[in-house]
């Protein structure tokens, strides 16, 4: 039964991955990290990606279903040389976390990384 560290270790097996983390987006607190971080600073990467997630999560524009279930799945930032992939972790209880992947654009396949990260997020909470 995987915990945070096991899931992050599995995330490091995704092709092209440079680093991974599980982060609380209301505070930028890292619950766990693996591999490298942009500029060598996992805490800064967590705080910065948390700001991006806050901006998306507080706005109704990205939730058009009107359903009670959370609508947000992932966020993708493409930059020169890298991809930043953010996957919301939906839990049965109340929590505000996401998995973050930093990928080498020359090595990574974005579609594969998205699917693998989706499965890892699901595996973190499945009973």
């Amino acid at each position: 039964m995987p915990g945070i560290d096991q899931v992050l270790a599995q995330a490091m097996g995704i092709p092209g991955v440079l680093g991974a983390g599980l982060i609380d987006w209301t505070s930028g607190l890292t619950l766990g990290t693996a591999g490298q971080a942009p500029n060598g600073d996992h805490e800064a990467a967590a705080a910065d990606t948390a700001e991006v997630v806050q901006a998306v999560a507080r706005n109704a524009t990205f939730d058009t279903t009107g359903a009670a279930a959370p609508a947000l799945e992932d966020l993708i930032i493409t930059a020169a040389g890298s991809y930043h992939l953010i996957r919301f972790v939906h839990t049965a209880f109340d929590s505000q976390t996401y998995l973050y992947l930093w990928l080498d654009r020359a090595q990574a396949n974005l579609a594969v990384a998205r699917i693998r990260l989706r499965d890892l997020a699901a595996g973190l909470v499945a009973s």
Partner: protein
Amino acid sequence: MGLPPSPPPGPAGLLDRCAAARVTGALRGPHGCVYLLDGAVTWVEGAAAPGIEVRLSAAGRVPPQGWRYAVETAGPQRQGGRFLVSEGWLTQGELEICHLAALLDAAFFALPLPPETTSFTPGTGHWLGVVRPISAGDLQRATARRRALLDRLRPWAAVDTQPVVPAGPGAPAGTTPRQRRLLAHADGRHTPCELARALGQSAFVTLLDIRRLAAAGLVRMPPGGLPRRRPGATPAGHPPPGAGRGRTPTWQPPVPELLDTRDPDVALLVRLRTALEENL
């Protein structure tokens, strides 16, 4: 000659000193209790934020009698968290996420610990056991970032401790699912922290959502709690008063109906105050 000496570090708080001394035990302050193991924070609990029991019970993940078994089974070894996983109620990942979410929420209210009213019990731990310790520095920086987020909505702080009263019926457009759920449960009797407990959700995120709803005019401000314009302050992107003659007022009352009231005296007074504050 050399570089000037670096400024002395700021006065370290009680938690920093305990972390540096690698203490093990519980620090009980007026708004919560912080458990430490070798200086790392293993658990925080407080009355304002719903704990792990409330969160998991609200989600239906642990049966009501399960908590009693867990506390009894945890025993002196304090392995309650491991017991919840071994019973199949939670995955290890869920335990770790729920534990840190509840810890972070309680820390928001418990920190900083005032040295004069905080007592220390050495050696003690919590029945949940050590799930995932977090450094005192990381926790305090995370709490400071949360506080900064709430401070951006400071003019609406008056709603924090008052019963939540929706400004109108129904679920207005432009709200998130979480905000709609809060509006649906706001009955004019419960404060944001009481709503958070009833729904088993983060008290901090509830405060943030209620302030946002108040700012959008969807939750009523308590009487006397209308935001005041500070003298000399102007809305972002607008020139100071007098720079653009004849511009339309940009101030919006937090309760839109205030301007539509049938009582002409109140409407007149609100308009008068708005006009006066525009020209302060």
